Structures are given as structure tokens and as C-alpha cells.
């Protein structure tokens, strides 16, 4: 279903954009007149410049003069045509109505196809998301359950904070194992949690997702801060940031419980 949806959108965009980009004949004719003059004028100027160059042979100069003479009537004709064009451009409202009357039907069909494809894709995504939920028919064996992962991650960070707080002999070297553990948490716990974004939207909708990912992202940012503070050899800030990260994860758990309650 998703493939059909994508094809619909691509065809729809192609049709709508092709007819949408089309100029009305009046505008196109003006462009032709102006373009003809620009091109001919440019060609004559280029030839004149070539003739004026010091290295140009007499033979070439004669040929250039012949070419300019051949272009002269066309140039004069183009200048006359340009002079006939009224200085005011085609009015915007005329352009809009003229364009729509000539292209409105295929353009609208293209837009409708885009919308149809979009709706189809939404439906396909919803079905896939429901199936991919842990326990669903399409769930992967290693699928991460947002709630379960969240609780274990919060516990890991809280424990790490506790261990760091208990250290009596603080040293720069002593920060290194904590830094490695923070790196591991970011990579093995936070990133998989972030990747459950669509699972969370599928379960709790966009508003619920925002409710959860706000504090979760805050926790992620504080883990990054803890790592950076460790690089900067600032034990207190690193420890404080771990506490804030754990707090953010615990806030996310609380939000999750609220959402679950509201759902039941």
C-alpha cells in the first residue's frame, strides 16, 4: 500500500507541478519577444567585441561584419516587436485567472492525487505502526518497548549518579570510566528510545508524543552535558548533570503513567 501511495504522490506532484509552472500564452509571448532581442543583441555585441580584439585577423573581421549584417534585419525586427509591447506587465489577477482556466483541471487532479497518496500513506503507516508494537504481528524480535526501556534507562542513570556521588577520592582519571558509561548510555539506551518516536506517536498521538519527548530530550541534553563536563574535568557539574538527566527520565516515566491512565 505504501508503494502505491508513493507512486500516487510522485505522479500527482509531477502533474500538478508541470501544469502549475506553465505560463499563460500572453506572458510566454512577451518572454519570446524580450528573449529574441536579448539573444540577438548579445550575439551582435559578442561579434563586435571579437572584431575589436587585437588578435582578430582581417579575414575573420570580414566574416564578422558579414554575420552582423545578416543579423541586422532580425535585430531590427526584434527591436520593433519589443517596442510594441506595452510597458505594463500582464496583471497578476489576469495571470491567475488565465492560468487556472487553461490548467485548472489537470492541476487540481494532480493536487488531489497528492492528497490521496498522502492519506493512503498515512493509513499504511498506521497499520504498520500498530503491527510493529511489541507483541504485534509485525513486531521485530529485538523491538524496543518504549516504557520498558525508559524505566531501565532511568534506573541506570540514577545508579550511575549514585556511584559518582559516593566517590571520595575524586580525580581526573576517575572521570574516565564515568565518561565511557555515559557514552554507552547515550548510544545503547537513549538513541534506541529516540528511535521509538513513531511507536510513541502511534500509541499516544502527537500531543502525547510531545508530552513524553519534551522531558526525554531534556534528559538526553543533560547526559550530553555530563559528558562535556567530564571532558572539561568538572566533577561537580558532571555529577549535577547526571542528576538532572535522571530527573528528566523520571519525569518522562511520570508523563507516561499519566498518559496510560488517561487512555484507560
Amino acid at each position: 500500500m505504501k508503494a502505491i501511495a508513493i507512486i500516487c504522490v510522485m505522479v500527482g506532484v509531477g502533474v500538478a507541478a508541470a501544469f502549475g509552472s506553465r505560463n499563460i500564452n500572453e506572458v510566454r509571448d512577451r518572454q519570446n519577444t524580450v528573449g529574441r532581442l536579448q539573444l540577438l543583441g548579445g550575439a551582435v555585441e559578442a561579434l563586435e567585441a571579437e572584431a575589436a580584439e587585437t588578435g582578430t585577423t582581417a579575414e575573420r573581421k570580414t566574416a564578422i561584419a558579414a554575420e552582423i549584417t545578416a543579423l541586422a534585419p532580425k535585430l531590427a525586427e526584434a527591436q520593433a516587436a519589443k517596442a510594441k509591447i506595452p510597458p505594463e506587465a500582464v496583471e497578476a489577477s489576469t495571470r491567475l485567472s488565465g492560468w487556472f482556466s487553461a490548467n485548472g483541471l489537470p492541476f487540481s487532479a494532480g493536487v488531489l492525487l497528492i492528497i490521496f497518496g498522502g492519506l493512503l500513506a498515512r493509513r499504511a503507516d498506521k497499520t504498520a505502526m500498530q503491527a510493529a508494537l511489541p507483541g504485534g504481528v509485525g513486531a521485530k524480535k529485538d523491538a524496543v518497548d518504549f516504557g520498558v526501556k525508559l524505566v531501565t534507562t532511568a534506573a541506570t542513570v540514577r545508579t550511575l549518579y549514585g556511584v559518582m556521588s559516593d566517590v571520595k577520592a575524586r580525580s581526573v582519571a576517575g572521570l574516565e570510566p564515568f565518561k565511557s558509561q555515559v557514552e554507552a548510555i547515550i548510544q545503547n539506551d537513549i538513541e534506541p528510545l529516540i528511535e521509538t518516536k513513531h511507536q510513541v506517536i502511534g500509541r499516544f498521538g502527537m500531543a502525547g508524543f510531545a508530552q513524553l519527548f519534551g522531558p526525554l530530550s531534556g534528559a538526553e541534553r543533560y547526559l550530553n552535558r555530563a559528558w562535556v563536563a567530564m571532558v572539561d574535568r568538572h566533577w561537580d557539574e558532571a555529577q549535577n548533570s547526571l542528576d538532572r538527566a535522571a530527573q528528566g527520565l523520571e519525569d518522562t516515566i511520570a508523563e507516561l503513567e499519566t498518559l496510560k491512565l488517561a487512555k484507560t
Partner: protein
Amino acid sequence: MSTLPAPPERLVTGPYREITIPAVVLGVLLGALMTAAFVYIALKLGFSMPGSTVAAILGFGLLRGVLKNGTIVENNINQTIASGVNNASAGISFTLPALFILSVDNPALANFDPVPFILAAMAGTFMGVVIIIPLRKQMIEFERLRFPSGIAVAAILKSPGAGPRQAKLLMWGFLIATAFTVMIQGEVGLIPEELSLNHLIPSIPEYFPIALSISFASIGAGLLSGMGGLPFVLGGILAWWVIAPIAVGAGWAADPGLGEVMAQDGWQAGSMYLTMLRPLGIGILVGGALAGVVASFPALKAAFKSLSVAARSGAIGGNSNDEMSSRVLYIGLAASAVALFVAAMLASDDVSVGQGIAMAVTGVVWLALAGLIVAQATGMTDISPLSGMALIAVTLIFFISSENITAAILVGVAVCMGIGQCGDMMTDLKSGHLIGAIPKRQQLAQFALSWIGAPIAIGAVFLLWSSGPDGMNGFGTIESGLTAPQGQALASVIKSLSVGDVALEKYVGGAAIGAGLSVFPLGGIGVLVGLAMYLPLGVTLTYGLGCLVSIWLSRRKDNAWMGATLVPIAAGFIVGEALTNLGASLFRLAAG
């Protein structure tokens, strides 16, 4: 002779250094220097440079190296301030020069007062920073946008603790990008800027480009974006490999009928880009972003709720206290709108009070939407459609102000400054997230100091203009050496607007496509497709190459490998190209 053993490293005690005087002073100084230099570069070459990378590396050397006690988050504050101040170099040099250029043919536009422009630029800066407040949660925490440059800067900031392997990979990425970028430079010219089949096989028309731009920054951005960047590539392919040939084949594209005289397909490709694909792309960007706001309303509502909690919580212990309060957003927006109104009234005697109010309100509303678009585009691709969004602002205000060019450019300045600030602030916040910075402190630093760039950039533009013969024409001509390409482009658009040339049907049609695309369950797809139509295909395909390599690798390697290997290499690519281009530009300027 024996050497003394190195003293053992000691733990650092006391408050953790974040917003400090050295970080603030260094950020302001670097930002001010970069602003003045990059205004000149932008007027000469047509593009400005982001300041984050340069500031992060210099901050690394000065704060950690010279002062010895700098922390990673302190360097993040330095880099946030410096890039925030430097944002003015793009915001001003893309817009204000148009007014000077137009004043050559229309002397009534000359001798305008710089004060309203400084006021408008500062109002835009403040608006850009405050608009980002609720979007941070939405884009960084909920949507998880990549912000490739943000990741690259974070990789630099984290390098002291990332271990020798990652440092080596970062350096390898840097060296490869540097080598290729040097070989591309005109003076060296060993390889072309773009590998194009159109040049090798002339029978392939230019409206069907088969080209790859040699840009390791684009490859790096693609590597960091992966699967999420594919719609961008498909949008570009659709525009140039499907729509363009159909338009030519069906006779929809302009055809001056000179095929027998000269190769006109280059002109045809340019015309199609400027009058068909680009305006449609801008429309798709706008429609996609608007519909995206509606689609992500629940998440945005949650972000606002969290900010309100921050406003109420004061000094309680929860992490919500790390957020800037929603009060700052509301007060900042209101104050900036008032400042923009005052600036509009001061800028021209022809602006009525009603028009001034309409301009201020439209400016603020458009800045908010365009800021969202720019932040989203930067987050997904690292490419910012700054000029296109400023163009829409100028168009809207041009008609609201009864075709008052000065007023239109004034609001264009504010919008360009604001949306640039949105992209920059969000990129810095991404770096901040990855190194655990407190967002409120970053936002506070940028809010308090970024305005400094506005008077510096405007002063630089005035100075350069008056450096010409008879105290004018210092840029905008080939003779001056500063062609001001972006200013010329905006001036030509304003000339077109003066005769009523507005591609309204493209904007409306594009917006409908963008809105339709937002139904598809992939955040920001409308912005990606629109952005692809807005850019040359060579850039899009190079970025796509990076995406494909990333997808291929992600199927063979685990997340840990991707994070520890691919990210530093990609970051090295982005940083290497940015710094080499900066060095090359400075070299050219020094060489005259």
C-alpha cells in the same frame, strides 16, 4: 638534559563556565570582524559565510588554548554570539545594496536616512531570535531535524573528548574537502566546479542538466541527512528531468525561435528557472510550511505549554527552567513590530499610519512564517532559501506601501535579518543540544548581542558605496570591482514589480501543492520539494549522492559506527570547504 614531568591534570572547581566575559567579548569581536569582512565578500562574490565554524575553531584556540580554562559550553556561547552578530552580513548585503543601485536611475531614492534601516535591521534580529523560542522544542526535540552544520560545529566543540580516532577522521574529512576546494578555485583550476555531461555532450540541452557540483559540504550535508534528504533530490529531478523537458516539448517554455542562429537552450533553461520553476518552488515552500504548522499543531501547542511552564516556574528544579519564557516571545514580537512600524514611518514621508501598521504586521507575520521555512530547510538540508523569502517580503510590502521602494526594501532588510537569525540560532541550538548547553543561555546571549551586527553591516555598505567616484557608485558596477550580485538581483525584481510583473499564479499553485504534500506522513516534505525546485540541479544531486552513500552505509553498519565514523568525516567535509572558501575569498581580496 632532563625534562620535568608534566604536572598532573587537576579537577576544575567552582561554577561551570558558560556565559563568561571572555566568551562574550570574544564572540562580539569575532562577530564584528566577520560582519565587516563578509559584507565586503558578499558585495564582491555574491555570497556571505556562516560564522559558527570559524568562531568555534578560534574560540577553541583562544579560550581553551590561551586562557587555559575555557569549557566546551563556554566556546559554544562564543560561537553562538559571533555567528549571531555575523548574520547581519548576509541580511544586509542581500537587500540594502538594491536601494543604492536603484538610486542611480532614480535619484529620488538617494540620500535616505540610515537610522530607520538600522532600527528595522535590529527589529528583525530580535524577532528572528524570539520566533525561534517555541520552534526549538518542535524542530530539535520533536522533529529531530539534522542541522548538518550544527552537527559539524558540535563535532569541533566535542573534539577534545572524542578520542584520537574521531579527531583523525575529522581531520581527514577536513583535508579531503580542503584539497578539492583548493583545486576548484579559479587560480588553481585543476578541476571544474561542476562535472557536467552537458558540456561534454553538446546535444544534451541545458534545460536537461546532468551535472554534479564538486562540493564536499553538500556531500557532507547529505551524509548527515541520509534517508530524510531523498525527497529533496526527487524534487530536483522532477523539476529538471521531468517538468523542464515536458515544458519545452509541449511548447510551454519560452522559445525565441532562434535555434538556427545560436544555441538558445541556455537562455531557455535560465528563463524556465526564473519564471517557472523558481516561483513555483517558492510557492511550494510557503504552502508546505503553512500546512506543516497546521499538521504539527499539537506538538507546537505542547512546546508553548512547556514555555508557559518555564514562565511560571521561576527557579524550580525541573528542566523546564532551561527554556526561555513565552513572555519573552510575546513581548519581543510586540516590541519588534512597534520598532518596525516606527522605522517604516521614519523611512519615507509617503507612508501613511495605516500603511505603516499594515507593513509592520505583514512584516512580523511573514517573518514568522519565513523564519519557520528557513529553519526547517536549514535543518533538513543545510541550505537556506534566504533570498527567496526576502523577495516575497519585498513584493508584499511593495504593494501594501503603494509601490514605495524605500519602504519595501526597509521591511526586506528586517525580514532578511530575522529569517537569517532563525536559521543561525536554530543551528547553534542544535550544536548546543549535542553538547548539553542550556538553551535559555544561548538564546539570551544571541538576543542580547546579535543586534550589534546591524549597524556594523549597514555602516560597511554605506562606506563602500561612498568609496566610489563623487562619493557614490562604490558597488553595483563592474568598474567598481564590487558587482553586488544579490543587490542587483533584488533591484531587477523591484524593477519588474514596478511594471506589475508578479507570478501570482505560481505562488498560489505552488502553495496548493505544498499544502497537499503535507498530508503525506513525512515532516517537511513540501519544504524539501519546494527547495529543490528553487536550486540548480547540480547542487541537489551532489547532496543526493551524500544521502545515498549514507543510506547504503546505514544498511551495512550499526548506529555506533555511523556516529563515530561517518559524523566526524561529514563534519570535516563541511568545515573544510567552508574554511577553504573563506581563506580563498580573503586571499583574492588581499590580492586585489
